[in-house]
């Protein structure tokens, strides 16, 4: 693991559970003539640790329900972690009050998935972009606010004159640019992007990806990039983390991960990407479906579908171990040299 002092953001054993059992009444069950109380807990993120280095793009990939979006929202402070620590440049931020979190709000920002839901339909684009500037710089003059917003709009490729329009007057790609602009107006150094392009068409995806890469270059941004699209991740990332059912399976540099995946789940996932001109038959077939995060399997969460699983995998939760090339892999099989 990288040195804590150099990391921009560190996650230490982060756990996030959601209690969805509802009120006390819903928890009560009549079983065998006795009333029992049963909680229903979604284990969205389980014991995830990694560092994000300044200037890199760390992507988190996984199938739907694997907890990658929850992880993103826990990092940015939308959810409060159930356990573990989140450190920003060495300072703990996961237990701060709203007021204590305020200084970090200008340093960390977020870009959302749905370009239609992420902009308030009742506010003009200019109002949407000016609000964070005014909020974080009380007493700033109107002219300064306008100038700052106009500069950012220019940068992301939205004509500042269009600020008087409402979001519904823009196309999906343009909205996503506005959404990026809203994150950038407070001049952050770290951006969490939760599936920022998955709701867009292919030709628009390329535009937005290019914009994100340009912004990273110009502003020296660090990205935590959440996506389920592996080919996009391969293209944009410095390092990639693979999640399955709330647990981290593998974290490696993009080249290592896509060149020589080590974790059986990563291997299966990569083989499933439809490659243009590739052959379809080469898929590694996984048996069964993804279990629900409500009743987690014992031991390794992947053992039910893993072709290499043995008795130890059912019993013992694998720890993430560092390999020679710096990758982290959480698998007994890799550790024992079986896989």
């Amino acid at each position, binding site marked *: 693991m990288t040195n804590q002092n150099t990391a921009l953001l560190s996650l230490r054993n982060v756990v996030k559970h959601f209690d969805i059992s509802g*009120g006390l009444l819903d928890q009560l069950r009549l079983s065998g003539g006795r009333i029992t109380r049963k909680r229903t807990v979604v284990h969205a993120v389980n014991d995830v640790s990694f560092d994000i280095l300044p200037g890199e793009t760390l992507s988190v990939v996984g199938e739907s329900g694997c907890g990658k979006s929850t992880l993103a*929202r826990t990092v*940015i*402070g*939308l959810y409060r972690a159930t356990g573990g620590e989140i450190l920003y440049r060495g300072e703990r931020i996961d237990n701060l009050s*709203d007021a204590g*979190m*305020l200084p970090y*709000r200008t340093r*960390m*920002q*977020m870009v*959302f*998935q*749905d370009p239609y*839901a*992420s*902009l*308030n*339909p*009742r*506010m003009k684009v200019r109002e949407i972009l000016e*609000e*964070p500037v005014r*909020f*974080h710089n009380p007493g700033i003059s109107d002219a300064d606010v306008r100038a700052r917003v106009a500069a950012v709009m220019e940068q992301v490729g939205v004509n500042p004159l269009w600020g008087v329009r409402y979001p519904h007057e823009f196309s999906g790609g343009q909205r996503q640019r506005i*959404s990026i602009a*809203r994150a950038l107006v*407070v001049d952050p150094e770290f951006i969490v992007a939760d599936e920022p392009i998955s709701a867009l068409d292919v030709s628009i995806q390329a535009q937005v990806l290019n914009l994100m890469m340009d912004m990273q270059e110009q502003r020296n941004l660090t990205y935590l990039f959440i996506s389920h699209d592996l080919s996009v991740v391969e293209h944009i990332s410095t390092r990639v983390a693979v999640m399955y059912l709330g647990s981290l399976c593998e974290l490696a540099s993009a080249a290592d991960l896509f060149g020589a995946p080590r974790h059986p789940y990563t291997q299966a996932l990569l083989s499933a990407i439809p490659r243009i001109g590739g052959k379809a038959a080469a898929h590694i077939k996984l048996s069964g479906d993804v279990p629900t995060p409500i009743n987690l399997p014992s031991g390794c969460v992947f053992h039910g579908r893993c072709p290499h699983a043995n008795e130890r995998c059912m019993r013992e939760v694998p720890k993430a171990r560092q390999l020679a090339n710096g990758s982290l892999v959480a698998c007994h099989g890799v550790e024992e040299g079986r896989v």
Partner: protein
Amino acid sequence: MAGLLRRFRQSYFLYSFLRDPVAVTSFALFVILASSALLAPVFAPHNPYDGANIDIMDAETPPLWKDGGNPAFLLGTDNQGRDLFSAILYGMRVSLLIGVGAVAMQACIGIMVGLLSGYGSRRLDNILMRIADVQLSFSSYMVAIFLGAIVQMTFGVGRYEQVAVPFLVLVIGLAEWPQYARTVRASVLAEKKKEYVEAARVIGLKPFRIMWRHILPNTLTPVLVISTVQVANAIMSEAALSFLGLGMPVTKPSLGSLIKSGFQYFFSGSWWITLFPGVVLILLVLSINLLGDWLRDFLNPKLYKD
């Protein structure tokens, strides 16, 4: 201001309104009814509240065009000799006043409760929604009738007259607020999940500001839609209460109490005392309902397709 006016004139709202003859007609009808009610003292030939003006000898005069009609009384008189036309104008004013007032009250309580319940803690939500459930499980009529009975009993008929209007506003307002609370809560819950709210939280805005500035404006469309229907319902509720003798007293009649006062004479030949206020009541409610219908279709594009 001029710019706003111009934008309104070019808006799709106005365009589709003008293209719908039913909407235009009902709007015109509503404007005529409402303005003649508001300006009742100007239009009405007599003042029905002024006892000195009323002569019991004029009672049950038929409308002008019937045998025995009196040119002074266009639509005839009621059983006390009041000019029916004037009484209807004044009565409509009372009905509208109570309807709008009650809805304003429902909306105030309902929006507050809905916002708190949708955006507040789950426990608060549970408490507020249970109260709303209980309130809803008694239909508003029942609550209103019961409270009406109690208040009339405690105040006595004489003093009841003075408090009738605020009381009816209060009772109809209290009876129907859960409609608003549920509508607002449902759309707050839907809006709360949207990413623009999360974006506002990532900016660091305070919950109150998010609730007020970001969520509330996005819940107003359904509020607008149910408001029209609620005004119509409130007017009908008032009429029903008055018809049961628990609403406006006959000395200060609303449309409902006019209908009631005529009911017992209806089958003995004096049909006009009930018929004319009844028709006006129906036209008033119908025009509001038609407008509400159009508004709902306009604001809900899913239904707008057909």
